[in-house]
């Protein structure tokens, strides 16, 4: 049985259609990258999978049940966010919240949970700075802790929302490798939202590309938006597929093992402004 089943999902905000009739499934051990321009609904899709946002239409099942009933078993890795320097929270406290933060009362960890916590810290190589306040750790160290926090409760699904933003290349690779290792060893599928597919190219099985709503040249919502495509990177990341999604000529180039997309409406908009003829 698939871990995630999304059927006929649609998301509209007023006139804007971010996606419609979106169907995909996620099997155990799969890594799905969700790509697309800003505002295409990538994060909204994650919020739907978490049960925090109701889709306009369609259903989502996680392990055969509605997302809200599964929220305790979904690991979530967010964008790196800056903790205030004096936040009274150590690395291990942050990870522990992923284990029992949703339970009432003060609570003590059982020996088994203690063990789970230590293993999660060791898994991401954070044991050495687990007792340091989170506000004094580097971005890369914080994101390792985030991965440990997402994995500590032994999730059935991991959702990651731009977890690589503001990390340097080595740190990006480390975070990708940690999530990749988890799905290889425990079979936990990963949904990975990112604006840049390149750090992931070696690891992903499939790509979900959301083209988002279409805008007229005046910036008004226009008909024909909400298109998407799902498939292997070689199927989706082609000039042909992306041109169809955007309804305009888009070139997908492979340069030195990297994927470069040129000619999306977002792109043109930027050039337009830079040309100064607006």
């Amino acid at each position: 049985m698939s871990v995630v089943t999304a059927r006929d999902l649609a998301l509209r905000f007023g006139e804007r259609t971010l996606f419609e009739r979106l169907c995909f499934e996620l099997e155990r051990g799969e890594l799905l990258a969700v790509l697309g321009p800003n505002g295409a609904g990538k994060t909204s899709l994650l919020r739907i999978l978490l049960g925090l946002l109701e889709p306009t239409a369609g259903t989502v099942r996680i392990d055969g049940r509605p997302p809200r009933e599964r929220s305790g078993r979904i690991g979530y890795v967010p964008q790196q966010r800056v903790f205030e320097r004096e936040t009274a929270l150590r690395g291990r406290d942050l990870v522990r919240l992923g284990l029992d933060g949703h339970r009432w009362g003060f609570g003590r960890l059982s020996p088994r949970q203690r063990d789970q916590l230590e293993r999660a810290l060791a898994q991401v190589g954070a044991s050495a700075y687990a007792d340091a306040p989170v506000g004094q750790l580097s971005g890369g160290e914080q994101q390792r802790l985030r991965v440990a926090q997402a994995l500590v409760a032994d999730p059935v699904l991991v959702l990651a929302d731009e977890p690589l933003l503001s990390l340097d290349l080595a740190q990006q690779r480390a975070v990708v490798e940690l999530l990749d290792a988890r799905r290889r060893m425990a079979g936990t599928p990963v949904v990975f939202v990112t604006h840049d597919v390149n750090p992931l190219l070696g690891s992903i099985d499939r790509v979900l590309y959301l083209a988002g709503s279409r805008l007229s040249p005046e910036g008004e919502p226009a008909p024909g938006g909400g298109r998407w495509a799902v498939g292997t990177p070689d199927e989706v990341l082609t000039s042909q597929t992306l041109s169809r999604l955007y309804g305009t000529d888009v070139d997908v180039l492979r340069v030195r093992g990297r994927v470069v997309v040129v000619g999306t409406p977002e792109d043109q908009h930027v050039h337009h402004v830079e040309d100064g003829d607006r």
Partner: protein
Amino acid sequence: MFTSLLAQHFVHTALWSGAVVAVVCGTIGVFVVTRGMSFAVHAISELGFTGAAGALVVGLDPVLGMLGGSLLVGLVLGLLSLRGRERDSAIGAVLAFGLGVGVLFLSLYQGYATEATNLLFGSVVGVSDAQLRDLAIVAAIVLAGVAVLYRPLLFASVDPEIAAARGVPVRALSVAVFVLLALTTAEAIQVVGVLLVLTLVITPAAAAQRLTGRPALALALSVLVALASTEGGILLSLAQPWPTSFFISALSFAAYLAARLVDARRSGSLRRAAQKRFSSSAPRRTWAVR
């Protein structure tokens, strides 16, 4: 004279009241500081003053009016769940108007002006046995609330996005914090007065956060600082007849300054440790445990 005062019943009542209020303020303070709600504390206490002044005008118990005023504002602020700059300006607007209404109430009130002074600056030595009992009941409610909500409240305060993803009712908890804060504020007003509530709710927690990275220890230290400041302040005001509120605020501020000093000295050595950590490729790393 100091020792003969210590034998007085009203002094005992004052010390007990101070202790009860300090424990509650120190506890709720760590959440208030983590969530950046200092300004809200101020607003809630000023509106508590308005409520109390209103109660005086119509001949009700000012403590009830105070509780009503701060609860009302706490609920409204909690339900609006505003963020950032909008929250800041909304609180400012509400606070200013509420205080204006309070001034009107005071001018309408024909009774003793001391009542008003006590509200603004506190009067811990004036607490009666019955009031002490009420203080203890409200304190028990707040502490029970924090005990039940502790883990999700910590989660939602330091890491709201993930907490929501894990199914923690972040919004409901935000309303709960405001209600608990309103109850706490109404307590604190009776000891240090409207204008000095921050000295028990914010200062001890801010000092504690400088001293430790452990959430539970920060809570304990915050309570300790609040307790020491309040009891010390009451005792000092017996020896030297200056306002109790002054001594309490002076002691808690001294604790805050000391905590900053300790933190500054330590973070200097931490920074050197971090530089070493980044520059050396040796995998072994050690951290000073905060």
